[in-house]
Each structure stands twice: as structure tokens, then as C-alpha cells.
């Protein structure tokens, strides 16, 4: 039972990080109908800046700079690329973000090389005891910060003008335009938020129990894809729930792989995608997503 608990805690703590990335997918999707395949590179970009500057700025300063850089990077992508073909079809834009991802991730992984970059975070390898469980402080920090960010995000999404404007645009962009809501601004803020969230997620992916940022850290964003889709691409709550679900499923599948050896091994990565496929068969718009409204 304790073992089960450990697996669940591991899964949940990882799941919140997935949730942060997935939230970025969702907020961009809601504001612009674009699925951003460059999220992994944005994560790498912000985290790379943190890793390179923490020596001079300290952890907190580096994180601030990294978040700003991640947000700025996202903004550049949005501004230069995605905004220009304003009426382009979302699939073409999704492919465009794949192009961005190829270029950006090539450059960043080339720079990182074989290094394992640490962030100089205050948690180190210290742990916290929760009853029978021992959890790395960094993961507790990740959970606390993620929960904090998610709450902050939901509050902003619910109560600020930006939140209202984004939700209105997501529902009916032409009607929103008639209210004077500028879609460009909604989209800009969405990309900034996604870039910032990705950076924070990147930092947590590189703190204990991971040794640091390396040239494959961006691939974790691939796990956030199933998270976002399982929850429903247009559901912010679904992103977080999907992240936690995927994190827990992966952790349990890995942890009990011995009992599931007929499925082959390792099961962690593939289980995320298998879950996604099953969910999509059952609910084509994810667990909490709204069915696509078809307007002729």
C-alpha cells in the first residue's frame, strides 16, 4: 500500500508539471485555435536561460529572467509567425509551429550538447517526510508552485478582463471582435502565458529528482500532449486533470510493469498515448472538452 502511495505521489507531482505544459497548449488553443507543437522548445528555451544565468543572478533572478525569456520567445513566435497569416487554417499553423520547433530545438540541443545543466535551485536533493513517504523538496516545491500557478491562472481566467476576453474569443471570435475585443492582444497574452508556464515546467523538470536540464528535456512536452488532449484541448481544468491523470498512469504502469510484463516494457511513455487513444475513441473531444461546435 505504501508502495502504491509512493507511486501515486510521484505520478501526481510529475503530473502537475505536465499540467503546466498542457495548460499552455490549452490557453493557446483557446485563444487562437492553434496547437503549438513548439511548446517543448519554448520550455527548453526558458529553462536554458535559467540554467545559464543562475550563477550570476541567483536562482530567483534567473527564474524571473528565464520566465521573461520564455514568454518573450513565445511572443516572437506569435508575433512574427502565427499572427501574420491571420486567416490561415489552424492545421497549416500547427505545421508552422512544427517548423519552429525543428529550428529552435536543433539550436538549443546543439548548445546544450551532452551537458547536464543545473539551476542552482534552493531545494537541492533535500527531502520532506510525509508520514510513510519521502518526497524530494523540489517536487514538493513543484507541486506547491504548480498548484499556486494553476490557482492564479484560474483566478485570472475567471475574473480578469483578459480571461473574459479570451473565453469570449474562444467561443465566438467574431462576436468578440464586435465587442471591441482585440483578438491579437488575446492571442499575445495567451502565448506569453504559455511561454512562462513552459519555462516554470522546464525548471521543475530539471530539478530533483532529475539532475538537470539536458538535450532531451524538451521531449517531456510530448507527454503533455496526451495530457492536454485527454483533458480536452479547450478545457483549462481538463489540462491540469489530464496532466495529473497521465502522470499517475505513467507512474503506476512503470511501477507495476513486472505484473504487466505481457504488455512489454517499459510502459510509461506508451501508456500515456494508449490512454489518449482510448479516451478519444470514447469522447472525441477529450474528457472535459466541449464538442466542436460546427458552424456552417
Amino acid at each position, binding site marked *: 500500500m505504501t508502495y502504491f502511495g509512493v507511486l501515486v505521489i510521484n505520478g501526481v507531482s510529475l503530473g502537475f508539471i505536465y499540467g503546466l505544459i498542457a495548460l499552455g497548449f490549452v490557453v493557446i*488553443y483557446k485563444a487562437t485555435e492553434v*496547437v503549438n507543437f513548439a511548446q517543448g522548445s519554448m520550455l527548453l528555451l526558458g529553462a536554458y536561460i535559467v540554467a545559464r544565468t543562475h550563477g550570476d543572478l541567483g536562482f530567483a533572478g534567473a527564474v524571473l529572467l528565464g520566465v521573461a525569456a520564455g514568454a518573450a520567445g513565445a511572443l516572437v513566435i506569435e508575433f512574427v*509567425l502565427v499572427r*501574420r*497569416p491571420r*486567416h*490561415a*487554417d*489552424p*492545421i*497549416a*499553423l*500547427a*505545421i*508552422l509551429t*512544427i*517548423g*519552429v*520547433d*525543428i*529550428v529552435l530545438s*536543433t*539550436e538549443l540541443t*546543439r548548445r546544450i550538447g551532452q551537458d547536464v545543466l543545473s539551476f542552482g535551485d534552493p531545494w537541492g536533493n533535500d527531502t520532506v517526510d510525509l508520514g510513510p513517504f519521502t518526497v524530494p523538496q523540489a517536487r514538493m516545491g513543484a507541486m506547491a508552485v504548480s498548484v499556486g500557478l494553476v490557482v492564479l491562472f484560474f483566478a485570472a481566467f475567471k475574473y480578469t478582463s483578459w480571461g473574459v476576453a479570451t473565453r469570449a474569443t474562444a467561443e465566438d471570435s467574431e462576436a468578440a471582435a464586435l465587442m471591441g475585443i482585440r483578438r491579437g492582444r488575446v492571442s499575445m497574452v495567451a502565448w506569453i502565458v504559455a511561454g512562462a508556464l513552459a519555462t516554470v515546467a522546464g525548471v521543475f523538470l530539471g530539478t530533483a529528482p532529475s539532475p538537470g536540464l539536458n538535450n532531451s528535456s524538451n521531449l517531456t512536452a*510530448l507527454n503533455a*500532449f*496526451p495530457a492536454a*488532449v485527454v483533458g480536452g*484541448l479547450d478545457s483549462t481544468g481538463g489540462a491540469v486533470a489530464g496532466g495529473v491523470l497521465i502522470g499517475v498512469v505513467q507512474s503506476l504502469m512503470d511501477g507495476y510493469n513486472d505484473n504487466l510484463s505481457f504488455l*512489454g*516494457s517499459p510502459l510509461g*511513455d*506508451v501508456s*500515456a*498515448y*494508449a490512454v*489518449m*487513444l482510448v479516451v*478519444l*475513441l470514447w469522447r*472525441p*473531444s477529450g474528457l472535459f472538452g466541449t464538442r*466542436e461546435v*460546427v*458552424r*456552417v
Partner: protein
Amino acid sequence: MSELLRRHASRAVIIALVVVLAALPLYVGAFWLQLGLFVFAAAIGAIGLNLVTGTAGQLSLAHAFFLAIGAYGYAYLSGTATSIGGGVVVDGRELPPLLAAALAVALAGLAGLLFSPIAGRLRGIYLGVASLSLVFIGQHVLLNAKDITGGFYGRNAAPFQLFGFTFTDEDPDLTVLGVRFGQRERLWYLGLVLLILCYLFATNVLRGRPGRALQTIRDSEIAAATMGVNVRAYKAWAFVLSSMYAGLAGVLVALAFQRPVPDYFNLTLSITYLAMIVIGGLGSVRGAVIGAAFVTALPLVLTHYSDHLTFLAQPGESGVGAADFAKYVYGGLVIVVILVAPGGLAGLFGARGRQTGVTTDQPDPTGPSSSVMVKEDPL
């Protein structure tokens, strides 16, 4: 009159190209032949992906999975039971290679058919993301179903045979105009013929009723449905056809590799195929071929000439090497094409521009099937 002339000129160019390609094995070395094989395989695969993504507008990232089915299907069906290392013994069906290849293509089509209920239910980007999962599940199976795939170690693909003629270095020894025709030369012609057939088939499909139906679906599924197009059936059919193309490309890859390994059939491969059809020009068969040639050849050719390309970091130096540079170029081209040249390379080079319809990001608002008209009809 000038239209007629242009068509003749265009046909002449294509025939000239085919003649040049047919003569090439007499002149060029192993590197170029191997490269050519990859290009032929990629072009066939790209034509297939283009049917489903370029023409029907269904984003698919599962192409690597269907290629794997073709490659491993062929290796398994034509192979014999052998020990391949690490104490693993792979099974085989020992079918004649031609039959094995045909069945492998059919198998890939069947996989497409099995996936099509999912594809039929999902719209737009959801389909793209769902198709991602096939690649991951495929990799998992390739690595775990060891007695069929050989696991990480791969398994040998039997040499191709056609009516007793083997596509290997000997048996029979073959010399044409003084050039010894080994495995690569022979496979070159096989690949070339298959590509020509696939090209002609695809252009015919697109020119006919199914092509128009697929374009209508891309522009608006609702409009297509109201016009009497059976959307679900056509989407399924496009998926099946596209996976069969991928399966054939997979068979060629298996023959070119001699030993397919799971590492190859990963997400990067799917993305590479997507890059091919975007760079070539979505919706255009010719574009798919041009894009496939460009994306496949670029990294290899750059590496081949890297000694002479002084702006590239030489092996061992730090800086941007040929491999990275190729990625910048084709990643950048994907961006540029979508931003400014929706017709892709085919649109730039081709006399008539886009051949088989418009690109997804600019539905022609005047067309009767266009979503814009349906959506914004100023009633």
C-alpha cells in the same frame, strides 16, 4: 494554344527527367544510388501522406507507423526463421518476395482501415494528435514483439526477387554497358518504376471524382456532406490509400536498408514526411516528390560536400555542422512556405503552379465548395 504548348513542354520535361534518372546508374557511384533509393521511397511515402494531409486536409503524424508496417511486414513475410543476436530468434513466413511485398502493402492498408474509425470520429487537430499515438505504440511493439521484429536489433529483409531475377549483387551477375549492376543499381530501377506508377496513380485519383471529393472535405466537411459526399467513407478511404503508399515506401526502405531497425520509425520520421509535403506544396503530387527529394537529399548532400562547404563546422569542430544546418534549412523552409509561398516548391517551379487544388490555408473564396462562401454568404 499556349496551354497546349505548355502541357507538351511540361510532359517533355518529365520524360527527359525520367530518361536521365534511368541512365544515372551508369554514371554515378554508390552514394548517389543509395541516396536515390531513399528519395524514391520517401517520394512514394510523401505522395501518400499528401493524399490524406494535403488533399483531404487531415493532419496525420502516423506516417512512420505505416512505413514500419510495410518494412517489417515485408521482412517478416519474406524472411526465414533466424537467430539475430542476443539469443533472439525471429520467425519468418518465407513467402516469395513479390507476394510478401504485396501483402505488406495490404497490411499497411489494413492498419489504416483499422485506424480509420478513429480518424472518422475526429476532426482537425484532434486527429493529428491522436495519430501521434500510433507512432509511440508502434515503437513499443517494434521493440517488444521480438520474435517478429527482432527488437532493437532489427531483422534482415530478404532481397527482392521478380520472376527469378534477384535484386542483389550477384545471381545473376549483370553487366550493362560495362557497368556492373549490383544491388543498388537494380533496386534503383525498381524504385524508379514504382515511383512512376505511384505518381501516375495518384494524379489520376486526384483528377477524378475522389480527388474533388477529398478537396471538398478539406474545405468543409459540412459542405461536402450536404453535397452528397460520404465524408466518413472518403476519409477512411484516403487513410487506407495513404497507408498503402506508406507501406510500399516501407518495403523500399527495408530493401534499401537491408536491415530495418526500430529507431528509424520514430516521430522524427513522421515530422520529416510532413516537412516534405509542406515544402513541396500541399495538395500537389509533383510537390510531394520535389519535397521528398529535397528533404531527403539535403542532409546527406551537405555532409557529402561538407569538406568544401567552409561555412559549416567540420567534424570535431564546434559550431553548426552539416546535420544541424540541414535541420535549420528545412525547418526554416516549412515556416517560410506556410508564411509566404503556400504553393511550396512545386508552386515556385511549376509552370502552372498548384496542380491539384489549392493549399489548406487559402481556400479559394470563389469556389462553390469553399468554406468561406458557405460560412460568410452575405445573406
